[in-house]
């Protein structure tokens, strides 16, 4: 699916820090009707939601229960050995709030079967030969944090955390970057398989939890967390997901939690791994860009310089453009000439 761009001929709208404010009751109702209609059209009978302990899957679970009632919703927790144990605590609290009995599926054994951890750690060791997970070393990959100031491109580094807590970061060569990402993506693809097991065993639909930031900028794994039957909140900015979370009564613990990747062994937040900007800045700037707000106006409202706004706009553009393939269905040819003659 291609991202629809706002026509440049449309006049810019009045832009303010309140531009992303939703009517959460109306939006919840709109999404609920969408879920009910889409699931019915696809001849499915309920919803399966992977719950991570994060805000997006929490809102999707709440909306799914609103659409079908808890008896027709399955919530699945899928940690692996790298996951923060608190995530399961939050996920259980969420499920209890909405009357759903969650299923725990630890995917560590599946990932070991895929040799995920060795493949990932071998690549890390090519950069840091001393890295040894068995000795308590942890690692993560990160992007530069200075997007607004210096417009650096999206080039990953790898950070290790030694057993004594000291961190070191080095640039990540291309071959090692690809291997680390490919191995790590086995996690999301294993989770997709698990969710579809539970969905197909009941003829339920797998609910997507990607928000607009993730969906449009390509912060998802093709046929991993991107492999779903419908996208429930992919039209909402992260800050709008928080508005719905508050309205729907998502537990405070989840509303207050910093969004994490919970993918690598070292703790990291999503800003460090991918977005490079806090959501309350990114979402408004992106909204401004989509609605043709002049950079000078966006800068004034956000308390930034025009150059900083340009850097953010450029990064949004690059991420959308370079990840278009993730959102497309596999291309195919039309019938050959002469068919039927």
């Amino acid at each position, binding site marked *: 699916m291609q991202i629809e761009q706002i026509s440049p001929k449309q006049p810019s709208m009045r832009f303010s820090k309140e531009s992303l404010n939703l009517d959460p009751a109306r939006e919840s109702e709109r999404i609920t009707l969408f879920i009910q209609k889409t699931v019915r059209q696809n001849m499915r009978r309920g919803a399966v939601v992977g719950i991570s302990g994060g805000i997006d899957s929490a809102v999707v679970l709440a909306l799914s229960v609103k659409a079908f009632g808890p008896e027709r919703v399955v919530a699945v927790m899928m940690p692996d050995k790298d996951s923060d144990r608190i995530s399961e605590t939050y996920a259980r609290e969420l499920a209890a709030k909405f009357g759903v009995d969650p299923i725990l599926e630890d995917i560590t054994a599946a990932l070991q079967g895929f040799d995920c951890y060795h493949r990932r750690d071998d690549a890390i060791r090519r950069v840091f030969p001393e890295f040894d997970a068995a000795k308590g070393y942890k690692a993560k990959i990160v992007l*530069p944090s*200075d997007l607004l100031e*210096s*417009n*650096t*491109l*999206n*080039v*990953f*580094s790898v950070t290790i955390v030694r057993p004594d807590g000291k961190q070191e970061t080095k*640039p*990540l*060569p*291309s071959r090692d*970057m*690809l291997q680390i990402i490919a191995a790590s993506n086995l996690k999301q693809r294993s989770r997709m398989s698990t969710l579809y097991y539970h969905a197909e065993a009941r003829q339920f639909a797998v609910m997507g939890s990607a928000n607009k930031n993730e969906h449009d900028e390509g912060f998802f794994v093709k046929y991993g967390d991107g492999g779903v039957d419908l996208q429930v909140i992919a039209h909402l900015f992260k800050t709008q997901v928080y508005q719905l979370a508050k309205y729907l009564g998502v537990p405070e613990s989840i509303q207050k939690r910093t969004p994490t990747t919970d993918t690598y062994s070292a703790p990291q937040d999503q800003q460090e791994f991918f977005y490079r900007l806090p959501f309350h800045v990114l979402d408004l700037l992106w909204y401004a860009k989509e609605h043709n707000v002049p950079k000078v106006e966006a800068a004034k409202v956000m308390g930034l310089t025009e150059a900083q706004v340009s850097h953010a706009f*450029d990064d949004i553009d*690059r991420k959308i*453009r*370079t990840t278009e393939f993730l959102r497309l269905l596999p291309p195919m040819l039309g019938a050959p000439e002469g068919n039927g003659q």
Partner: protein
Amino acid sequence: MNQEIEAPIRNFIATNLLYSKEGLTHPDDASLLHEGIIDSLGVVELVEFLQSKFNVKVEQNEVRPDNFDSVAKMAAFVRRKTGAA
């Protein structure tokens, strides 16, 4: 100006990123990012190529569009780094 820096860069992009036997047909000032010729992986590979081919050290804060977004910009960057500007 001779093309002793531009030519290897063009050849690298054509051969290793585009897998083209016709060479890079875009002008030296074409935006590689905007034209969809390279993505973030291509940027990393170009950094590695410039470091090994021209014996320059590229710092992370130098990996910016004004240094890497075109053949011309990369060549100018290398010339500044090597003092050949």
